[in-house]
């Protein structure tokens, strides 16, 4: 069963095989939950949104067109559900895109081993938390799922050029935030990896 494709699992689910759908849930739950969490920024609510996403997907599985990938379709559902949740709860984290601070480059030597890995992750998560919900979703789709701009455009309902611009501005914001919060030595170490 590990070689089952998404379409096989969908067909089995449509025939009433609930275990097949459970496999789809297991396969995509991390990504769906991550998108929901990065957008709504609260664990319990993100869990609720992610669960509703799968419920919605199951109820509308017969309407899934094979033109796009199942994952693209699923991410579109979670993206829209997260936006609906934010609209209904008016719980938005906004970051004015114009307020980008001046970038200050690293200057010191590398002291990578001195920074705890978990601490570093928390700092980066904190920086991601400063982004708007849509920008957070964009970061997840682009960096974690490595979706193409075309696929992201289908999910978010934005033109590819708009996504490019948004991505560029996200990176600028993150660079500005992280250059303040991370030690210059840490940044130097990331750069040294490349």
């Amino acid at each position, binding site marked *: 069963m590990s070689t089952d494709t998404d379409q096989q699992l969908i067909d089995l689910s449509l025939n009433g095989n609930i275990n097949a759908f459970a496999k789809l849930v297991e396969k995509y*739950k991390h990504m769906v939950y991550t998108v929901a969490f990065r957008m709504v920024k609260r664990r319990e609510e993100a*869990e609720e949104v992610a669960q509703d996403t799968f*419920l919605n997907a199951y*109820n509308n599985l017969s309407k899934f067109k094979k033109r796009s990938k199942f994952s693209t379709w699923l991410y579109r559902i979670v993206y829209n559900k997260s936006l609906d949740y934010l609209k209904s709860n008016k719980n938005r984290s906004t970051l004015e895109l114009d307020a980008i601070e001046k970038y200050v*480059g690293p200057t010191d030597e590398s002291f990578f081993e001195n920074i705890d890995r978990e601490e570093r*992750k928390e700092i980066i*998560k904190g920086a*991601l938390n400063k982004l708007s919900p849509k920008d957070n979703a964009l*970061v997840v789709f682009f960096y*974690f799922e490595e979706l193409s701009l075309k696929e992201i455009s289908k999910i978010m309902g934005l033109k590819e050029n708009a996504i490019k611009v948004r991505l560029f501005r996200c990176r600028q914001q993150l660079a500005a935030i992280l250059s303040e919060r991370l030690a210059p030595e840490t940044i130097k170490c990331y750069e040294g990896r490349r």
Partner: protein
Amino acid sequence: MKEEDKLNHSNEWITDAIKEVGLETPSPEFTRNVLSKLAKNKVKDSQIEYRPLITKNGWAFVVLLVISVFVLSFDVGERESNGEQTILEKAFDFLSYDFFSGIQLSDTVVMGTVLFAVFACFQIITLKRFIEKQV
């Protein structure tokens, strides 16, 4: 290093930094919760009774009406030859009596109303397809 070069240079290390964070993990009972909600919804759906917009009795009435009009229309031919006013003619005379006298509608109003009805029907179909695509 120029400001622009610094920014471009910074973007490369951000990719590594973001990827290091990794995906979030939902609760261990996540899948079980989804499946149990699915099961609950199935039970709810089976309890919902769907009623048709037009009942069987309603359809029977409509069919009866159509048949009556059809039968009466045969009566027209027979009475016309005798010079009597048919039942339908009497009914239409009653309905049109003084209700619509004096009302004059221009061609523009009639055409506008017809076009409005056509576009309204078109929009209903288009909107229905659009809403279905949203899912």
